[in-house]
């Protein structure tokens, strides 16, 4: 990437910001006790992921990540937080049990992180042969309407059923039986 002097450092800095945003958002989403802070952590994590998608040469996905995750999913969760009382009640377990279960969960997630990261980094991945396509928005659109047309229609059906189901379930109980 050629540009003005120090361009590589600037791009690397932006990449580091994206990685740190993702990691900090994930930690914030998992560790805070207030649910609203957890939602903010999820939104932060999604912004970082959008940056990572941009570096992975998928700018369309990066826009979709912000639109769907931050714009739709986080806002929906915020609505649910407003409708239900969401602050976690004080833990009923004893202090010793809390420390024990926390340590167990930490051990499990640490083992998962170590194992998956080691598998991904150490594995001898095979580089593809042949000419690679560019993955532009045009290619995605053509593939969505030809090769993956059936799956696309099924997904739209799933979304329709999800909307109707959400309406029916949330309405149930509003009227007295």
């Amino acid at each position, binding site marked *: 990437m050629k540009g003005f002097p120090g361009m590589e450092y600037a791009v690397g800095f932006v990449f580091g910001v994206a990685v740190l945003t*993702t990691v900090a958002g994930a930690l914030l989403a998992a560790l805070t006790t207030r649910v609203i802070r957890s939602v903010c952590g999820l939104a932060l994590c999604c912004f970082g992921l959008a940056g990572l998608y941009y570096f992975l040469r998928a700018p369309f996905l990066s826009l979709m990540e912000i639109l769907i995750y931050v714009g739709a999913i986080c806002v929906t969760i915020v609505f649910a937080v407003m409708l239900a009382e969401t602050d976690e009640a004080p833990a009923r377990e004893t202090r010793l049990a809390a420390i024990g279960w926390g340590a167990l*969960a930490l051990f499990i997630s640490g083992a998962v992180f170590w194992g998956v990261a080691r598998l991904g980094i150490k594995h001898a991945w095979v580089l593809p042969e042949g000419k690679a396509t560019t993955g532009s928005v045009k290619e995605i659109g053509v593939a969505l309407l030809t090769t993956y047309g059936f799956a696309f229609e099924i997904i739209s059906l799933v979304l329709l059923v999800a909307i109707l189901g959400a309406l029916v379930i949330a309405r149930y109980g509003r009227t007295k039986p």
Partner: protein
Amino acid sequence: MSFDYERPDIYLAVAAFVLATGIYGLVRRRTLIGMLIAGELIFSAASLNFVTMNRFFVTDKAVGQICVLFIMALAAAEISIALSIVIAVYRNYRSIGSKDVSEMNG
């Protein structure tokens, strides 16, 4: 500060980290919405893995992106259903703590 963003290692490590925090949150959160957020983190980790593999190890670069679009659509459907269930549960029990909702009624 700079990282090598043209290699898959750091993306895979970040995806593994997000997966691990999602699992930790799923185990430790005590409310249904908190567990749902942890589930979304796991979805995001899977999406990041898809895009990384798509960028570095696949010739047809559209496939992974389409998979991630489908994952996003399924996540949106899942969250709408799950939140409506959470609200229905809150109306019945006046609580969304995962330990309070422990009896079934047919």
